[in-house]
């Protein structure tokens, strides 16, 4: 990755709503180069999208999140990729990662209620032939999401100082 792409990506990771103008100001690149850089990051599939980081405890809407450990058994016809391909199709799955350790997939699930989460896991995931077992951890509190701390960080500095 070029230095420019690196710098632009760092800034978008910090705040995806920085405008190209702001990014140009911060990096010293000109605006067309910033736009081109973002365009090629998107075209190459490095940047897959942009979404809000939400603190559901502050929202009026109910939203239940869970971490699901998924264990699978593979056979000649079924690989990790095949299982993953089926799982990612569900809207309830917000992230899916193959991990090392005691279980195979680390799956994040979101739904409107606890019942929806449990129904999804027990009716959609568990019955899949390759799935051996699941362990569901309901999220009870979230302290950091997408790199952002969920508490309000008060600035306790004096408003004017030498």
């Amino acid at each position: 990755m070029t230095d420019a792409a690196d710098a632009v990506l760092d800034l978008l990771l910090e705040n995806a709503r920085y405008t190209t103008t702001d990014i140009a100001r911060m990096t010293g690149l000109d605006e067309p180069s910033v736009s081109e850089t973002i365009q090629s990051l998107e075209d190459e599939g490095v940047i897959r999208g942009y979404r809000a980081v939400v603190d559901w405890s502050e929202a009026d809407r109910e939203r239940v999140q869970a971490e699901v450990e998924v264990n699978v058994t593979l056979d000649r016809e079924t690989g990790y990729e095949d299982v993953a391909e089926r799982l990612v199709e569900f809207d309830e799955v917000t992230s899916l990662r193959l991990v090392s350790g005691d279980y195979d997939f680390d799956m994040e699930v979101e739904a409107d209620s606890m019942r929806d989460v449990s129904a999804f896991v027990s009716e959609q995931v568990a019955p899949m032939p390759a799935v051996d077992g699941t362990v569901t951890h309901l999220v009870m509190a979230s302290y950091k999401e997408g790199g952002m701390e969920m508490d309000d960080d008060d600035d306790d500095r004096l408003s004017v100082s030498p």
Partner: protein
Amino acid sequence: MTGHSDRVDRVPPSGIRRFFELTEEVDDVISLGVGEPDFAAPRPARDAAIEGLERGRTSYTANRGMAELRELVAEDYARFGPTYDPGSEVLVTTGVSEAVDVGVRALVDAGESVAVAQPAYVSYVPCVRFAGAEVVDVHTRRADGFRLTPEALRAAGADEAEALILCYPNNPTGAVMDRDELAEVAAFARDHDLTVISDEVYADLRYDGDHVSVASLPGMRERTVVLGGFSKAYAMTGLRLGYALGPEEAVAAMTKVHQYVMLSAPTPAQHAGIEALRSCRPDLEEMRERYDRRRRFVLSRLDGIGIDCFEARGAFYVFPECPADDAGAFAEELLREAGVAVVPGGVFGDAGEGHLRMSYAAGMDDLREAMDRIESFLG
């Protein structure tokens, strides 16, 4: 019957204090008036202070500071060239503020005069006056990028002074000085036998190259006391930790004052300082990178708004020209009507009149909002 001394009378009330009080009266203010980092001290440094406290390490340290801290300070500063003996040429102080006070009192007699390059950090002039010495105001100019020049020193009559206080990278202007420019100042100091007190607390916050120490120039180490600290680079303002480096005799004199007025710098802060120098360099680099982005952002926005600003290349301030004649009145109006606090340059000495100090030690959202507000205020 109480009263106060003439020495205190000779020092006017702090302009910063006045502006702070004004700012507190207004709601929803974005402050660009803050002279300290918006980061917390790096975790390992905080942990070291906590661990010291948990182990009950709450005693005084040696007057000069803990030996290990002095060694690390000397080692850290050596990258700028000059080397100092941790045993006799390093004094750990309670922030650079104490080092300025102790330095002036230890090196200058009452009635002598001290040249102060201005605009300047607010404590230099009062410290000189509290020491019973006279201030020679040396005005640096926007036209020179607020660098100190021999012409400015000569024009102010600094050749008659006993000592010279300078600070680069500079608070409030963000100006820096390179080797060839400092060499001319050094020559002036040698020719007129000036002791130099060089406040280098922002040495690690330079964005366009390496800091140059005035003590690294020929014939300068023996006449220079360097002041440095942890407040800015390591975001440790509230821990109050600084140091002085200089020739043995000067440091011994400063230590004599320090031992009576301060005894030793806060012990938990010294533990934090040791850890900062041992392991927190990456934190410093990360903070510097963020300041640099914000610096570029603010300079570019000011340029777009049409506010004239020279390119500040150090510390975390920009020092634009005030769009109105009276910077004090403008700052007050900007505060009350637009909810943005900036500091009028005159607070930092007459040489700062007509300018505004804006600190970019603030989050990007605040900086953007502040610039938007300034833009529509001027609209």
